[in-house]
């Protein structure tokens, strides 16, 4: 598949701080590209560089086959974006804001198209309300409408689920999937909600301290065969010994306080539940830990812990 974004050896230094350090990655057409990293890892800086809000210290960026520095205007005509929590002109209505940003994007959008877009994000009933009366979730949805109003090929969403309630998160997730699957858009999405990225992204980039840690297909990184299951029990030792006597003994992984960890395929979880139910071992809870979270913490914090202890 053809690449739509190609970043090579990107760096951004704020005086002594290396916010982005020799970062290279490629986003293919049609990807939902998950961008992961802890707070301060350099995700937002990278996204702002892609959107020309920040000038990079070094590196090359090609978007849609054009150099970002030389073809900024042509590229941005085909890019829609939300950066962190979207804000609008509070004294204007949703419709006025959307119409205004459509004009700035260089497209002439008839008023029925504006209304269609507001309908798509579920704001048609509030089209005439001033944005100052909107909740964060409504602003987020209006942000999506602004990002899509000029029908861009590439959509960049920086933490689009920030500040949303569970329903709002689910709405945005479904919208991102719809944009990719039904409309063929390429979406770059950064989020600290790792399980959300796991649910939507087909490719993932993990960065830490501005450096690339891992890039690859989500299915390979989030292997369901290596799901970690947390078992909260009353007596760790007794439960551990009991499980040693069963067919689950090979799955036992570790003991953490009052929790026992087992590693298994995600599909085997119901069977474990059944086994435990048939015994008289007191169990408080059983839950799978998200494989991405595991993987992510593993590769981004290991070094940090070592450094902390060394100091």
């Amino acid at each position: 598949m053809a690449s739509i974004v190609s970043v090579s050896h990107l760096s951004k230094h704020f005086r002594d701080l290396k916010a982005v350090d020799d970062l290279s990655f490629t986003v293919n057409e049609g990807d939902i590209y998950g961008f992961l990293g802890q707070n301060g890892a350099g995700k937002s800086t990278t996204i702002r560089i892609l959107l020309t809000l920040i000038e990079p210290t070094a590196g090359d960026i090609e978007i849609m086959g054009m150099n970002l520095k030389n073809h900024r205007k042509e590229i941005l005509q085909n890019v829609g974006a939300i950066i962190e929590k979207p804000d609008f002109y509070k004294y204007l209505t949703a419709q006025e804001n959307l119409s205004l940003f459509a004009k700035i994007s260089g497209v002439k959008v008839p008023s029925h198209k504006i209304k269609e877009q507001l309908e798509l994000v579920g704001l048609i009933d509030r089209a005439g309300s001033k944005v100052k009366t909107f909740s964060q979730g409504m602003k987020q949805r209006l942000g999506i409408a602004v990002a899509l109003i000029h029908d861009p090929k590439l959509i960049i969403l920086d933490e689009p689920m920030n500040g949303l309630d569970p329903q709002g998160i689910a709405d945005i997730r479904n919208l991102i999937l719809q944009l990719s699957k039904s409309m063929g858009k390429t979406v770059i999405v950064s989020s600290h909600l790792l399980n959300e990225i796991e649910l939507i992204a087909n490719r993932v980039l993990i960065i830490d301290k501005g450096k690339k840690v891992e890039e690859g297909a989500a299915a390979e990184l989030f292997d369901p065969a290596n799901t970690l299951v947390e078992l909260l029990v009353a007596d760790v030792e007794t439960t551990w010994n009991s499980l040693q006597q069963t067919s689950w003994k090979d799955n036992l992984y570790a003991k953490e306080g009052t929790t026992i960890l087992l590693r298994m395929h995600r599909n085997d979880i119901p069977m474990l539940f059944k086994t435990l139910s048939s015994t008289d071992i007191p169990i408080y809870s059983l839950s799978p830990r998200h494989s991405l979270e595991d993987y992510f913490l593993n590769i981004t914090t290991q070094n940090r812990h070592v450094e902390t202890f060394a100091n």
Partner: protein
Amino acid sequence: MWKLLQIELFKIYKRPRTYIAFGAVMAIVAVVQVALRYDGKSYIDFMMSGLSDTFEFQNDKVLNGYLVCFIILNTLLIHVPLLVTLIAADEVAGEANMGTLRLLMTKPVSRTQLILVKFAASVIYVILLLMWMAVLALLISILIFGTNDMVVLRNDSFHQMQANDVVWRYVMAFGYATVAMSTVAALSLLLSVFADNAVGPIVATISIVIVLTILSEMNIPLYDKTVKPYLFTSHMVAWKGFFYVKSTEEGETIKGSIENLPAIGRSFLILVIYICLFVGSAVVCFKKKDILS
């Protein structure tokens, strides 16, 4: 560029803050007009006290719409920079504070264009504000006080213009005031580029204007030739020059004359240079600015 300007003007038109300045101008003009309507004689007596021994003035004729407008202009042009700053300083910093600047800059708009358009919108705002002031201070004053020959005091002398020789001077004065206020708008815009909140640039612009105005008005020989000629505030009051007329050897006023037109032209040029400097610097700084807000 035109489309962008329309958008900027639409934002200014829709912003409640815009109308504060229009309300403030109306209030100040009304206060001055009411005071002069009911106690104008005392004011004229006080104003002419230095000259009353030498000349005889008919106070009821001296106090007319033209003079009232001149008095208002003298008062308001000290305060209008503050009102202009409220809008101009908000142009970039206000957007950064609101969080709309980052969204705006992800659109296919060049940074140079954006600053130029924001400055143009500020100038249009200044023009509208001064037109509003002209309507209130000149037209309403003419309706209340009528017209007659205009007498303008200058230190210990006075200039007298025939009634039919005044209106064009006001047109020129308001035109000049537009350039003077645009200089303040340009300075506010420049300071606005460095801030993420409009309060800083508003306070900074007003502080600069106040300090430089004090320097411009101070009579310190050392500053007269070394500092004052280069301060933009020294040239902001040059609009008064349109009301200083030439006289014949017999002391007759020459109709349609301006005492020192080259001085006004020089002041105008200096203000234009300052505008170019401020707006140019705003463009350069904004192009280099990392938008982190």
